[in-house]
């Protein structure tokens, strides 16, 4: 029950999906569409697990009263306010709670929270990386040997390809950058893509055949 059924499910559905790819008969197509249709619903429940974990972790932190216990309150406030706004909407000029229709998505507060809270913070958090990459490049980029020099030169050419102050060599830098991207870079990335592709297929086969069972966890 605990291990055999999930293993069997993986194998049955996995083999069916492969079979369906090669034999797209009307009836297998019908089952295929059905399964796709179902899996989105399962996915929604699965993703909601993450939200529940967030709530649990936040509540535990608040209970613990350790330093910084106040911050999770802000997290929970943001979470529940957003959920509340998402259910409040206006239909035919009347404001109300609407659960089964999507009026809440047009609620101005719901949108403002997204546009003026979520977007600025999330994009700024990633904008911090501009500074970290500058300092990382400064500290770590040393032409210690041939390999490091190759890396450095390729990076410099790519970084300078749209620099308008290069004078007569400008067009050559741009051409070299384009060649670099379309030839050696392409070869390197293609080797990686093929490697990853083979890796995915091998792992998928192992999963379907029940050799790889890491997804089941312990117990």
């Amino acid at each position, binding site marked *: 029950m605990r291990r055999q059924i999930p293993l069997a499910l993986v194998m049955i559905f996995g083999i069916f999906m492969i079979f369906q790819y090669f034999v797209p008969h009307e009836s297998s197509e019908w089952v295929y569409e059905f399964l796709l249709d179902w899996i989105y619903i399962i996915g929604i429940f699965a993703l909601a697990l993450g939200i529940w974990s967030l709530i649990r972790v936040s509540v535990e932190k608040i209970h613990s009263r350790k330093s910084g216990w106040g911050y999770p309150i802000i997290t929970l406030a943001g979470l529940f306010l957003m959920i509340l706004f998402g259910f409040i909407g206006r239909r035919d000029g009347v404001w109300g709670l609407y659960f089964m229709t999507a009026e809440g998505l047009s609620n101005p507060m719901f949108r403002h929270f*997204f546009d003026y809270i979520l977007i600025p*913070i999330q994009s700024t958090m990633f*904008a911090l990386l501009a500074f970290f990459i500058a300092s990382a490049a400064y500290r770590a980029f040393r032409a210690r040997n041939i390999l490091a020099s190759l890396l450095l030169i390729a*990076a410099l050419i790519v970084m300078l390809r749209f620099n308008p102050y290069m004078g007569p060599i400008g067009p050559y830098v741009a051409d070299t950058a384009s060649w670099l991207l379309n030839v050696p870079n392409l070869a390197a990335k*293609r080797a990686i893509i093929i490697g990853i592709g083979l890796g995915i297929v091998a792992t998928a086969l192992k999963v379907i055949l029940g050799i790889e069972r890491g997804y089941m966890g312990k117990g």
Partner: protein
Amino acid sequence: MEFSTFLWTTLGAFLTLATFSFLYKDNPFYKIAEHLVVGVSAGYFVIILWHNGLVPNLFERLADGDWYLLWLNSSKPWYLVPALLGALMWTRFSQNYSWVSRWPLGMYIGIATGVAIPLEMANRVNRQLYATMIAIKWDNFWGMGFLDSAAGFSQIIIFAGVIAGLFYFFFSKAHTGIFGGIARFGIWILMIGFGASFGFTVMARVSLFINRIQDLRDWGAASFNTSNPHYSGWFFIVFLLLVFSLAAYAVVEVARFTKRRAA
């Protein structure tokens, strides 16, 4: 721009600066922004999952049934099965029954891996290999520019580079002799590839910062934009309030810093 919208953009500007303050050091403003964004983002996702997921894909399909009969009398009762399977996912939180969550998980993993095998093989492996080999056209070998990626010379580099790169990754045989030579060529090519990626990454990260400057500029411009029909002195006052409170915070921080240094 109306004043209320301007207040919202001011909030956005404040949160942007609060997040940037992390560059100096971790501080309460950054922490507030960090925790707020986690909550808002999760709440947003709940609503999207509800209105874009559960309602159209599940509830509306069962809508013609009755809840007190568990929707079994609806015209599409089979949609109860994925709902039940989805609900079983939630047994993860139980200590005794968490194994039940493996059933829906097994179904998902079976489907995901099953579709992956033929498609990944065809599109990541086979088509890339075809392109590597078919691309070499001997007519292209002469008469094209050195830096033309369609030239025969370039095609040979691609071919050799892919083979050598795969050599470097896959052959566990000791990299000596001719193997060593091929693998060394492979790692050279890979390094150029990583270098190109790094150059691109620098560009990417910088552009994220540029975007933030552009947003702050828009906010600043709005607080002075007298051609805005909704403009009033309040725009400027709000602008000054934020700027002054920031300056005050900076002064306090500098004072603290010098005090610490003196101590």
